[in-house]
C-alpha cells in the first residue's frame, strides 16, 4: 500500500479519531490547532483555532456535528465540526488530558492533570443540546489516582468510567456516584504508565498500551485480563480492528533517545497482532519517530497513525490484507 502522508501539524501528533461514518479524521497535536481531514484522500477540510497549548485528546459526537478537545491550556472546548467555530470553553485549573463523549453525547468525561498542588481528577460534564445553554458545572468529580490519568472512557451503557494512567492501574468507577468499583489486578496488570486505551467497536472489551512494552486486552465489565501482546518498545498507541480479529499497537523508543541510537533501533512501526492468538501478523513501517496515536477507520479498511515526527500517515489496506491466514 502507498500511505497518504498528511503534514498539517508542526509538532508531534497526540491523538487521532474517526467520526462514526469514517469519512472524517480528526487529528490533535502539540501545536495548538486540531485539524479535520477527509479520511479517504487525506485532503484537509479545516482547522479549529483557539487553543493556546498542546491539544491532548478529542472526540466527535455520533452525528459528527460537535467536536470536543482537551488541551494543556487548561481548557476543554466544544466546536462546531462544520464551521470550526468555538461553541463553548470549559475552564479548569490544570491541563486537560482526556475527553470522551458518552453514548448519546449528553455527557462528557474529562480528566485533568495534577498541577500546582491540585491532584488529578476525572470530571463529568453535561453537554447541552443547545450550546447557548451550556454550563460549566461538573456533574461528578472523582479524585484519587496518583499521577496523570492518561485516558478515561465510558464503560458499557455509560454506567461506568474506565480510567488508566501513570500509576499503571486500571480502574472502573461508577459514573453516577463516583465510587471505585473495580481495580485491575496488580500482578497481571501493567507495570508502568498506561499511555493509551482503545475500546472495541461494541465496547465489550478494550485494549491498553503501556510503557512496560506490552498491550493488554481487558473485559470492559469485569476488568479481567484477556490477552497480552508483547512488544520490544514502549507502547504509546493501540487500536482494535472493527473488521478483523486484529489489534495494532504502535510506539517506539522514547523521543529523547532517538538521536542517540541507530535509526533502525527505533522500531517506529505499527505492529499488527492477531487478537485471539496473540501472534504477530506484521509491521507497518514509515514513521521516523515514535508512533503516538493510532486509529482504525470504522469500516476496518484503513487505519491512520500519527507520530512524533508530525506526520499523519493514512493507510488503505491492500486487498491481500483481508486474506491473511494465520
Amino acid at each position, binding site marked *: *500500500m*502507498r*500511505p*497518504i*502522508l*498528511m*503534514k*498539517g501539524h508542526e509538532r508531534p501528533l497526540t491523538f487521532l479519531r474517526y467520526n462514526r*461514518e*469514517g*469519512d*472524517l479524521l480528526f487529528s490533535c497535536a502539540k501545536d495548538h*490547532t486540531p*485539524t479535520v*481531514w*477527509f479520511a*479517504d*484522500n*487525506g*485532503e*484537509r*477540510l*479545516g*482547522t*479549529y*483555532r483557539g487553543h493556546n497549548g498542546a491539544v491532548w485528546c478529542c472526540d466527535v459526537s455520533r*452525528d*459528527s456535528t460537535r467536536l470536543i478537545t482537551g488541551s494543556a491550556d487548561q481548557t476543554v472546548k466544544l466546536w462546531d465540526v*462544520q*464551521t*470550526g467555530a468555538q461553541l463553548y470553553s470549559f475552564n479548569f485549573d490544570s491541563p486537560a488530558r482526556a475527553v470522551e463523549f458518552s453514548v448519546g453525547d449528553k455527557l462528557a468525561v474529562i480528566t485533568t492533570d495534577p498541577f500546582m498542588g491540585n491532584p488529578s481528577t476525572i470530571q463529568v460534564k453535561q453537554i447541552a443540546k443547545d450550546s447557548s445553554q451550556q454550563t460549566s458545572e461538573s456533574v461528578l468529580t472523582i479524585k484519587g489516582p496518583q499521577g496523570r490519568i492518561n485516558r478515561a472512557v465510558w464503560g458499557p451503557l455509560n454506567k461506568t468510567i474506565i480510567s488508566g494512567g501513570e500509576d499503571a492501574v486500571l480502574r472502573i468507577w461508577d459514573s453516577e456516584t463516583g465510587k471505585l468499583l473495580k481495580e485491575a489486578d496488580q500482578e497481571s496488570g501493567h507495570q508502568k504508565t498506561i499511555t493509551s486505551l482503545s475500546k472495541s467497536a461494541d465496547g465489550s472489551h478494550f485494549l491498553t498500551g503501556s510503557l512496560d512494552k506490552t498491550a493488554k486486552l481487558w473485559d470492559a465489565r469485569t476488568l479481567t485480563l484477556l490477552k497480552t501482546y*508483547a512488544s*520490544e518498545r514502549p507502547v504509546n498507541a493501540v487500536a482494535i480492528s472493527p473488521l478483523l480479529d486484529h489489534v495494532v499497537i504502535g510506539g517506539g523508543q522514547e523521543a529523547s533517545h532517538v538521536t542517540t*541510537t*541507530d535509526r*533502525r*533501533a527505533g522500531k517506529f*512501526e505499527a505492529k*499488527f497482532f492477531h487478537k485471539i492468538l496473540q*501472534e*504477530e*501478523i*506484521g*509491521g*507497518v*513501517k*514509515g514513521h521516523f519517530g515514535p508512533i503516538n496515536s493510532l486509529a482504525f477507520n470504522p*469500516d476496518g*479498511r484503513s487505519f491512520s497513525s500519527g507520530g512524533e515526527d508530525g506526520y499523519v*500517515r493514512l*493507510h488503505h489496506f*491492500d486487498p491481500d*490484507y483481508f486474506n*491473511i*491466514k494465520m
Partner: protein
Amino acid sequence: MAAATLPGPTKLRWGELDEDDGGDDFDFLLPPRVVEGPDENGVKRTVEYRFDDEGNKVKVTTTTRVRKLARARLSKRALERRAWPKFGDAVREDVGARLTMVSTEEIVLERPRAPGSKQEETSMTGDALAAAGKAGAVLMVCRTCGRKGDHWTSKCPYKDLAPQTDNLPPPELGPSAPGTGKSTYVPPGMRGGGGDRTGTEMRRRNDENSVRVTNLSEDTREPDLLELFRTFGPVSRVYVAVDQKTGVSRGFGFVNFVHKEDAERAINKLNGYGYDNLILRVEWATPRPN
C-alpha cells in the same frame, strides 16, 4: 458498444462495393469487436480485427483486468460533508500547498515469518527463552551434563558427578595449589591438577570442530541453526552474530560439533544448501589469530 451498432447500417453486399475505393476502407468487412467479461477475477478480454499496413487482416486480443480501487459506500451525510466549504487554515490553502501527498514508498505489511510457515518456538512466551534472549541469546546448553535448555553450566545439579570437574575442588574447601593461602589469587593454570585446564584448552573448546556458516538470512536465530545442524551429530555450541545496536542478525554464525566427522559431513552437505531463500556457505572456521 461500437460492436452493437456496426452490423446494422454498414452491412453491405460485397457486390455493391465500389471498386474505386481501393484498399482504404474495408473496416466494415471486419468481424465486429467482441468484449468478454469482466469475469469474477475482473479480467476483461476484447477481441478486435483490423488491417495492418500491408493489408493483412490482424486479430488483436487485449486482455485487461478491471479493479475497483475504492469502495464507494459513503452515507448520505458523508456525501453532504464532502461538499462542506473549507474553514480555518484550510481556507487559504491553494492547490499548490502540498500538505497531503501520497508516499513515494511502497509500504508493505512486513510479516515476521514467511506466510504459511509454521510457528516456531520463538513466540517468546516461555521465561527460559526470554531469559536466553537477554543473555545474548546463547542457546542454553549445559557443558557439564549436556542437557539442553534446562540450566546453565554453572547451575548444573550434576556438577559434582561430572568427570571433568572431579579433580577441581572448590577453592574454599582446600588449598588449590601448594603454598597458597585462601585469600591469594591463584591463576587458573596453577589450580588443581595444574596443566589440565589451561587457557589454551578453554579457548580450544570454542575453536574445536567449529564450522562457520555465512549468508544466513536475517531471521535465522540460534534455534533454527541448531535445528539444521543437529541432524549431523551432537552440537556443543551454536552462535549467531547479532548487531549490538539493532538486534538484527548479521548474517553469519558458528556451530561447534562434538565430533569432527559430523562437522565434516555437515560442511559437505550444507555448503551451498538453500536456506530461507539464500544459499548457505558452510566452511571450517579459521581459528582466531591470537
